[in-house]
């Protein structure tokens, strides 16, 4: 129980900010002197056309890309100087799900749970919520793209961390699925979480939304 309380306190003070971000990929400058500050309970929406650098910005925030200049801060400490702590506090829902087609959802999620020390141990409710409970023993490759996406969402919920980075979370999902993602995000924000979401379309969500146009 103590651990649970500790994570909640962390969530309340959580803060993601960035200053003076510049990223050059090959010959192109994707963004320059970009800055944002995000507090607990807020959503940062990254908007822009295809190829405008949304994914690159998300990857840069996650620490996967090195920036030309500028730093991302988590709780006012540079991310790169506390990589492990920061990664323990975030989860990354990428376009490529990072799940193995040869394994079942249950096997995939079991592996992911071992990588993240804070994972929730009770995941039956998560399966129910996402509507994948009866699929959990099938090989992932036999599932539809939308169902695979739901498994990736299950991993995100399971991780139980304050910061969600989501890259086009609506891809391949039906209208129920889209609604579910919105609901889950609203709940996460209401409980003091933070969310950075990249989408090419408008997102209708009931929360404090900050925007970055790329």
């Amino acid at each position, binding site marked *: 129980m103590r651990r649970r309380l500790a994570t909640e306190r962390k969530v309340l003070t959580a803060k993601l900010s960035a200053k003076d971000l510049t990223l050059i990929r090959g010959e192109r400058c994707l963004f320059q002197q970009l800055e944002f500050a995000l507090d607990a309970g807020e959503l940062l929406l990254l908007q822009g056309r295809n190829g405008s650098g949304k994914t690159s910005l998300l*990857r840069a925030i*996650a*620490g*996967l*890309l*090195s920036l030309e200049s500028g730093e991302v801060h988590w709780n006012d400490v540079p991310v790169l100087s506390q990589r*492990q*702590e920061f*990664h*323990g506090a*975030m*989860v*990354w829902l*990428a*376009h*490529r*799900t*990072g*799940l*193995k*087609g*040869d*394994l079942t959802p*249950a*096997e995939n999620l*079991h*592996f*992911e*749970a*071992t*990588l*993240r*020390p804070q*994972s929730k*141990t*009770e*995941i*039956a409710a998560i*399966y129910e919520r996402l509507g994948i409970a009866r699929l*959990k023993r099938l090989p992932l490759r036999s599932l539809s793209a939308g169902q695979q996406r739901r498994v990736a969402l299950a991993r995100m919920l399971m991780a139980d961390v304050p910061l969600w980075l989501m890259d086009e979370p609506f891809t391949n999902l039906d209208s129920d699925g889209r609604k579910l993602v919105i609901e889950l995000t609203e709940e996460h924000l209401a409980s003091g979480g933070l969310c950075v979401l990249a989408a090419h379309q408008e997102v209708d969500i009931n929360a404090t939304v900050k925007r970055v146009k790329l």
Partner: protein
Amino acid sequence: MGADIPAQPGILAGLVAITRRDLLLAWKRPGDVLNPLFFFAMVCTLFPLAIGPSPAELMFSGPGVLWVAALLASLLSLNSLFLSDHEDGSLDQWLTSPQPLPVLAIGKTLAHWLISGLPLVLISPLLAMTYRMPAGVILVLIFTLFLGTICLSLLGSIGAALTVGLHRGTALLSLLILPLAMPVLLLGANTVSLAAGNEAYATGIWALAAYAIAALSLAPYATAAALRISNE
């Protein structure tokens, strides 16, 4: 299902998890294990066909042939070491997980060695017998291959991490790894030759063991750094 998820994994949990997952994947696709093995056996068959079946020649060239074949066979499976993880986004997940990356790299390499290195060691006595190697020498061969394949997997993981996601990956990987692997080949094959000639061979074993320990302590860091760079 909920019951078998560990509540508080320790530092080695990532290593165990990744090794376990890769073994599970290999179990579901046994071809990945068998291909290098067949390749190893095939190359060892080619040599007697090329140089003739004379027992003296086979005994003389056996250690070298077996070692070169093992080196090439372990190189064969390296290209795919991080490839699928890079393509399906698993690598992104590891790089953004709280687990230390060198530990994950060790887990990955351990799985690779168990899947493609250890089977070579296990099948080598069979092939060595066809080269008329006496039992004592075969023991030395097994031991040097055991240490040698560990070295090759560790070195190979660096090369695989550097070339993951590049076109021309396979040829480039060989170009990067073979010069690095030459000392291993040289130590391994010559130690077996010395044993075959009834000479003192302990130096070679010690040197290989030292190489393996050095590689085990340094290579994971290089692999981790290379993975971060290649996955950008």
